[in-house]
Every structure is written in C-alpha cells, then in structure tokens.
C-alpha cells in the first residue's frame, strides 16, 4: 500500500513539475517585452530585425474578450482566429471574460503588468477607464478618412478622447432595450397595454401592465437586479426613461442622476407590486430568470439576446418553455432614450512594438477588411460602419427578419454618456445605490438621501 502510494505520489509530482515547468517557460515568453527571441520560438528568432518605425509583428498575441454576442463563444471565436492565423501567421490566444468578474481580472492583470495585447469591449472601459488611465495604445493612426466616413459618427466619437487619441476601434453597435414575455402578458391580459408594432410604450402603459401582471400572478415577476454592475445599462435606462430624468450633463462632465425625476422613478418602482429591487442577482441572472419564465420582463436585453435568448441556443425569440419574447423600448412619455452599446477592440500598451503591430493587424483584419462581415455576424449586432474596404456591410442582416424589426428601435439611440470621467466608480455607486434604495423604507426622503450620497460619490470620481 505504502509503496504504491509513494509511486503514485512521485508520478503526480513528476507530471505536475513538468507541466508547470512548461507553464513557467511559456509565461516568461509571454511576459518578455522587447526580446521575443527564446529557444522555444524559433519563428521569432528568424524574424527580420525591425526596420525603423516599421516594427515586425510578433507571432503570438493574446486577446481577452467579454461575451459580446458569440464573441464569448469559444467555438465561434476559434473559427475566426484560425482564419486570421492562417492568413497572417499570428497566433491568437483567447481568454473569455465575464461581466461579473472581467473588470477585476483585467485590473489585476494590469497591476501585475500582464495585461493582454487586445481587449474587446466598449468605450466606457477602453476609452474612459483604461485608456484615460494611460494603459492603452493610441490607435488613431488606424483611422483614415475613408474609415471615418464609413464609421457611424456616434461610435466614432465615443472611441476618441477629447485630446484626439483613439483607444478603441469599433466593430459593432446596438441599442439596449428590454423584453417582455408576450405569452405571459396575453395570459395576464397585460397585452392590451403593449404596442407590438412600434415596440414602444408610455410610462402609464408600463404601470398598467405591471398591475395586470401582479393581479394575475400575485408574485414577483420582475427584478431590479443590483448585485453588481453587470447589465446596469438596463436599470439606468429604466429609471431615466420613466419620467425623463438624466444621468449626466450633456457635455459628460458631471453626473446628474440625483435629478428629482429619477428619485420619483425609483420611488415608483419601489412601490410597484411584483417589481422588486433584487440585490441577489445581476443582469445575467435576470436574463436567465426571464428565459426560464420566472420573470415576465427583462431590462437587460438587446438584439443578440433576442436572436439567442440566454445564449442557450433554443431558438430566437423564445423562452425555455417556448413562450414568445417581444423586445420593447423602455417605457417613456415621449421618445425613449435607449442606451447604446458600441463594441470593438483596443490594444494594451505592454511596451512591445512587435506585439502592438500584430495587434493592429488583428484590428485591421476584423474591423476594416472583407472579413469584417464575419466578425460582425459573430457578434450578433449591427456593423458600426456602412462598408469596409469595398465590402458593403449595411445589408449583411437583410435576410434576417428579427434584425430588420429591431431597426425600429435604432432611431431611439440616446446619448452615449458612458465615457464620462470616473465611470468605473460611478457605475459601482449606481448599483450600491439601488441596493440601498431597495433596503430603505421606501419613503421619498430615504430614496432621495441614498441617491444624493451616491451621486456625490460618482461626482467626486468625476472630479478626479
């Protein structure tokens, strides 16, 4: 017995030691900055010495991506990167982040000076956070005049700082919306308040629908999720739209969410029966609850979700049990202002010209070439540009009915205020505020006090 145990132990040790010895070797190469010539990589040894100003591209880069449509799906992304590797010889190692813990991971990696070469997300992180804090490479040289003409103006603007540096190259965009379980609405008789054709509703119609749902189900049918920042665009849009409150000033210099109209909205939500502030779930969990029929409404919705609810692959526009899902604008008196999502790639500055060059090739390949159409389709969103190097992108979803229907919402795309300074701290203050509102006695004073203190916290961050 003892002998076998010893042998087993020794075996584990040897295997493990070898395994991790290997890891050490690869990590070191990952972290080597300017000299990528190690024994493990004969390929790099053969690379020609970099000509001045025109560095040779590295042969290996890393990409970290948030779950943006199917860019969070290993299989789909592998098909894309394999094609890229076949054409350029640059190997891409992909890690998949989540909205629940992705920011923590990236921040940890930055602290450890081990940030990835490429990151895929939106301007609120790439431009307003990591870019503003000096960790990203200015990629404004990737935008020529044709690109600027082809790219959506709002998307383009969000990717540039006031000083003219660009920290993101946009690939896709959309408007975030909410969703209702149509089948459940019909059952509860709440469908009369919904205009399925225009996908819009007034505040009163929303409140009436909620009353009808509660009368029928008698239980929580919708959660204002606030366990973390995941999906906070939904809760912000709901609160802002109900009575027309604002989130920031028009010039994005300060946070204005202590607007009395927002306090009124938060109070209305507090008093709504069946709609509860729920600090035990985040946006992703809300979607899952909606998909599983527990919630009859979801605020964390967009076209990618409509095409593939809960990323479960069980059919477009259907819940787990086959109920019909209808996407809706947020309830508002007058035109709703929808939150935009703009996603693309940014490059972390790891001080290695060769890797930056390779990362730029990657961006060019996926955002501005004939391959852009594939990249956009994988994301399940609209292209951020009309055409790329001669390929027309405006019609890539032409045969998709849901996509066509969704274009009805696009005119309501509101201000992209997520690039306001101190955004990372502000959104943290937002969900903590929702928790405090939910835990309060629901009086207007208590809600106003919570709103005021957290808005002040956000504004302190905006001041620097």
């Amino acid at each position: 017995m003892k002998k076998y145990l010893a042998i087993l132990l020794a075996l584990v040790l040897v295997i493990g030691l070898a395994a991790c010895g290997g890891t050490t070797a690869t990590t070191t190469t990952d972290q080597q900055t300017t000299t990528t010539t190690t024994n493990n990589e004969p390929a790099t040894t053969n690379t020609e010495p970099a000509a001045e100003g025109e560095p040779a591209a590295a042969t290996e880069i890393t990409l970290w991506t948030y779950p943006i449509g199917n860019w969070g799906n290993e299989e789909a992304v592998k098909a894309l990167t394999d094609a890229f590797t076949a054409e350029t010889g640059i190997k891409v190692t992909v890690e998949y982040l989540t909205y629940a813990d992705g920011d923590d991971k990236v921040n940890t990696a930055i602290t450890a000076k081990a940030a990835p070469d490429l990151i895929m997300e939106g301007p609120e992180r790439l431009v307003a956070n990591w870019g503003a804090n000096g960790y990203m490479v200015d990629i404004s040289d990737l935008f020529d005049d044709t690109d600027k003409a082809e790219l959506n103006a709002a998307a383009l603007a969000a990717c540039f700082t006031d000083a003219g540096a660009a920290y993101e190259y946009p690939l896709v965009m959309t408007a975030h919306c909410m969703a209702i379980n149509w089948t459940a609405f019909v059952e509860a008789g709440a469908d009369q308040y919904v205009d399925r054709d225009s996908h819009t509703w007034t505040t009163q119609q929303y409140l009436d629908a909620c009353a009808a749902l509660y009368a029928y189900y008698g239980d929580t049918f919708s959660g204002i999720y606030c366990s973390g920042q995941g999906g906070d665009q939904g809760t912000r849009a709901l609160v802002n739209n109900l009575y027309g409150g604002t989130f920031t000033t028009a010039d994005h210099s300060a946070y204005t969410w202590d607007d009395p109209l927002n306090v009124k909205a938060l109070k209305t939500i507090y008093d709504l029966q069946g709609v509860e502030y729920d600090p035990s779930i985040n946006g992703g969990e809300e979607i899952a609850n909606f998909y599983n029929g527990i919630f009859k409404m979801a605020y964390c919705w967009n076209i990618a979700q409509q095409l593939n609810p809960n990323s479960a692959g069980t059919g477009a526009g259907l819940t787990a049990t086959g109920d019909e899902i209808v996407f809706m604008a947020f309830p508002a008196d007058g035109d709703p202002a929808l939150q935009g999502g703009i996603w693309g790639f940014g490059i972390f500055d790891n001080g290695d010209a060769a890797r930056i060059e390779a990362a730029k090739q990657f961006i060019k390949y996926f955002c501005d070439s004939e391959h852009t159409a594939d990249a956009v389709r994988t994301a399940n969103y609209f292209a951020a540009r009309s055409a790329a190097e001669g390929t027309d992108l405006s019609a890539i979803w032409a045969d998709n009915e849901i996509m066509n229907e969704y274009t009805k919402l696009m005119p309501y795309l509101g201000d992209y205020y997520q690039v306001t300074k101190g955004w990372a701290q502000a959104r943290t203050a937002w969900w903590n505020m929702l928790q405090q509102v939910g835990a309060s006695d629901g009086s207007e004073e208590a809600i106003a006090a919570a709103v005021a203190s957290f808005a002040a916290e956000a504004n302190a961050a905006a001041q620097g």
Partner: protein
Amino acid sequence: MSKALRRRENISGYLFLLPSLIFFLGFVVFPMILCVYTSFFDAKLSANVPDAFVGFQNYVTLWKDPVFLKALVNTFIIVLVSVPVVCVFSLWVASAIYKMKEGALSFFRIVFYLPVVTGSVAVTVVWKWMYNNYYGIFNYLLKGMGFIEKNINWLGDPKYALACIIIILLTTSVGQPIVLYVSALSNVDQSLVEAAEVDGATNLQVFWRIKWPQIMPTTLYILVITTINSFQCFALIQLLTSGGPNYATETVMYYIYYTAFKLNNFGYGNAMGVILAIFIAILSAIQFRLAREK
C-alpha cells in the same frame, strides 16, 4: 554553554530556519512592509498619475468611511459569532458521539468533516442555489410547511444575508474541531471520572470539574484554528453577495479587494490592510496570553 557551542547553535538554528524564512519573509513579511509603505500614498491604478505621498490621509479617511466601519463591525461579528458557536457545537457533538461504537463514531466524524473536504467553492455554489429566492430549496420547504407566505430573498435581504453567510461558514468549520474533541474526550483519565461518579457527582459536575480542564489545550488549539478560519471567508462573500445587499455582508477582507479592483484605489486599500493586520495581531496576542496563563 561554551562560545563555540553557542555559535554552532546560532548557525545551525539559522540554517534550519532558512528555507522557511525565505518563504515567510519573501511572501508575507516583505509584502506587508510594502503594504505599510504604500498606505501612505495616494496610489491609484493609473499610469498617468504618479503616486503622491499623503501621510496619514488614507487612515483619516478610513475612520470617516461608513462602509469601512460597517465592514469592520461585520468582520468582528463573523469572528465573534462563529468562534464560540463552533467550539460549543463541536464540543456538544463530540461528547454525544465519542462513546459510540467505532462504526457509528466514524460515520458521524466523516459526515461533519465532509463540507471541509468538499471544497469551499463547491460548497458555496450549492448553498447559493439552495438560498435562491425563486427556486431555492429553503423557500420551497418553508413555504410548503407554512412558515412563510412570501419567498424570502435570503442573500438579497440585509436582515438575513450575514446570517446566511455565517451558517455556511459554520458548516465548513466544525469538522476538524469535532475530530479533535472526540480524541481529547476519549483521552480523559477515566479513573478520575469514575472516582467522581462514585462520590455522587452529576454529569455536569463531572464535565466541568474533570473533563473540561483536561481538554483545555484542545480548546485553545481549536480557538486558534477557528479564528484563522473565520477570517478566510472571502470566497463566500465574493461568490454570494459581493458585500451586499447595502453592505450587509461587507467585510474588511472583501472591501480591500473591492477598493483595489473596483475603485482602483491602492493606497486606500493598503491602509485598510494595515488596520486589519493590527486588529488581528492584537487578537492573536490576547489568545496567546490566555493560552500561556492556562
């Protein structure tokens, strides 16, 4: 002791210590010194803004930060509740099972030890499911038995969240103390117990007069390991509540992480670490003073 011998003692002492010291100084003491150093700076996660020396500013801000104070209180609630409860509970279980037949004894020992070996993350995720507001087993049971009318959002309600965390912590903490108490109780000198029984002492008297003093060293050891264990509740907080709702489960350990990687404020986070370290050092000192007196 001769001089040469003393030198030999010194050198060999250091040599034996060396391997351990490299790790201890390198990965505990040295970072701790850096932590104290950085706590005097306004250090942000930013390549643009250089760290600025601010003296004790971070510490001053700390005492005005209601979230930090709340976190400090919660941390001590967790320790002060879980340590005595673990001790009493495991002592009770141990005294109930230590006289059982070998089979039954090891059955109970294994069962109470299982949550420890199941792994903290595995345990945490299953509890998360059981606590779930909408389809968790607890709400289903309590509703079925008529104790509650509406679902309780266990982890989403400030009234219950901390207690829910402590309960999980307890189930993963009692395994080792029970094993320890069982062996300590069976090692109690039986002749003393019998003598006392002949003298007509009640069970309770026998316990307090005879058994308790003899298992004292075990109790002290359990106090130490349970205290250490209670400070390791990071995984529970991070995976279940992220310190919420409304900071009801915020602990200093989680708040440091939160300050560093959500608010990107390193200097402030380090100042919290220093304060926590001081509190823990005091706590350890008290425990060891107690141990020495006994």
